[in-house]
């Protein structure tokens, strides 16, 4: 079991005074070369999808589209009308410069490559 894993940030609160957020469901996998994050964020406006890395913290923010609903009356509401936000603390073994992000069918998949030192390296015996 390697140490190149990400942990959700538990210390920080998810809400700020100005805007409320909802935490998207996430699944985290590890392969030989990468750590893969899958976040379920349906209905996000692509232009309002933001993935930021600051120091060792990765933050994902996605804002939903609501424009057409000004005139509507809700008869039943389960989907929270807030933007998505979730932060993860990254291990230093992640090469943050090569993070890849893809948004398909409402799922944001982040591929975080492990830095070379973090991968197992065979040493030949002379």
């Amino acid at each position, binding site marked *: *079991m390697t140490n190149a894993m990400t942990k959700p940030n538990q210390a920080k609160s998810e809400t700020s005074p100005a805007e409320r957020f909802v935490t998207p469901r996430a699944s985290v*996998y590890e392969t030989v070369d990468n750590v893969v994050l*899958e976040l379920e964020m349906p209905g996000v406006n692509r232009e309002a999808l933001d993935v930021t890395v600051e120091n060792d913290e990765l933050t994902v923010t996605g804002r939903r589209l609501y424009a057409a*609903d000004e*005139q509507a009356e809700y008869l*039943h509401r*389960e989907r929270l009308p807030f933007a998505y936000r979730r932060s993860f603390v990254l291990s230093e073994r992640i090469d943050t410069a090569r993070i890849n992000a893809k948004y398909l*069918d*409402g799922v944001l998949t982040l591929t975080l490559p492990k830095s070379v030192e973090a991968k197992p390296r065979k040493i030949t015996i002379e």
Partner: protein
Amino acid sequence: MTYGSLINRHNPWGDLIALQQEMNRLFADSMGKPQSSAGLLETDFAPAVDVLRDHDNLIVRADIPGIPRENIELTVQNNRLFIRGEKKRESEDGQKNAHRLERFYGSFERVIDLPAVVNPDSIKATFRDGVLEVTAAVREEAKPRQISLQDQ
């Protein structure tokens, strides 16, 4: 000594207003309310659903991320809208070393009672970015109509 009884005024209309609000709530609740009724026993999860109405349409929106369009089954029967499907994992490989698994998979079902004011033949649906949107037009006669006041 308390002054409560001196300040307490009885509003004769208060009870009637409360009753009216309760009636309104009951009517609103029974219209277009989705259920996961029998579905929950046989299905793995229930997607979140909103039901809203604008002037011309009833709109149902369901969050079903990570599923291709072909895996969603949408049916209307007896004025009930059935949203069913199967959400499969993309691949089995990723699970070998999973640190966190919060995503739901498997079969799902939601049932929405369509109010009588809606025309079931007019139902259209789109699926984009994991959001299923079903639109049903409200029958003409059920739309609010302005009645002009005539002179005597």
